[in-house]
């Protein structure tokens, strides 16, 4: 009974994926941290860099920890994921845009 899952022919994650993902994530986290703390960049360049590092780490974790696009539901997982991403981007940046204009016009 205990061996049911391991005997089934389904995709399984590998140890390698977790180790690679872990190391990459640590590197990206420390990189962002030191960029900020050691003031290696400033202003827009700094913000853009740490944002980029964050996006990169998210992609790493999506691929190496969450195995997005690998298991049997990959097609729908990806569709729902990209739809979510669109909604989130519209909601966050739309709200920022709208509220910025509202605050400007309504002097709050």
């Amino acid at each position: 009974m205990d061996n049911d899952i391991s005997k089934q022919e389904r995709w399984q994650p590998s140890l390698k994926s977790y180790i690679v993902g872990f190391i990459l994530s640590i590197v990206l986290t420390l990189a962002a941290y030191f960029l900020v703390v050691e003031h290696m960049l400033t202003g827009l360049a700094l913000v853009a860099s740490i944002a980029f590092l964050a996006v990169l780490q998210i992609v790493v974790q999506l691929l190496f920890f969450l195995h997005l696009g690998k298991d049997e539901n990959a097609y729908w997982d990806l569709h729902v994921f990209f739809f979510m991403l669109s909604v989130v981007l519209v909601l966050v940046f739309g709200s920022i845009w709208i509220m910025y204009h509202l605050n400007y016009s309504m002097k709050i």
Partner: protein
Amino acid sequence: MTEHAEIQREVHSKTVLGFWVYVMTDCVLFATLFATYAVLHGNTFGGPSAKELFSASFALGETLILLTSSFTCGLAMLAAYRAKKEQMLAWFGITFLLGCAFLGMELHEFSDFVKEGNSWQRSGFLSSFFTLVGTHGVHITCGLIWMAVMMIQVGIRGIKPVNFKRLACLSLFWHFLDVVWILIFTIVYLMGVVNG
């Protein structure tokens, strides 16, 4: 494969997809809180700003702990796939402890702020901070409760298809919480310390 096993496999597939869809809805929930934080983070109402309050090194500590717990959770799932019950329980145990450490650090940070008079009632900025990070903390708490229940369940019943799918969902949840934390670490703590 027998018919019934085929059906069990379908159930696993549907459950994991359904849980992924739930995780996507949780992303929208967090997005709403992030949007609110983005709009309110400058509204300090004379109180302290992010730059004055947050410690990047403390947040780094929390980040590395949570990241490691995400890794150990992955190792636990590997053990589960290979039907190695004791190994799985050990790795989930470590994940659980790391999760508790993370939560402890977060509560410590929160209580320090409150003691200094910088609670969620101080300003719009602090309300949105406590709610965004606190909601993540509530999710972590739920994940820890779930982990404890699963460890007991697997300890007693062993790893079977019917609870394997629950473990798969739990690990999805735990990894997702680490992904959200990357965004919190970057947007709230790192950018906070930079811009104020």
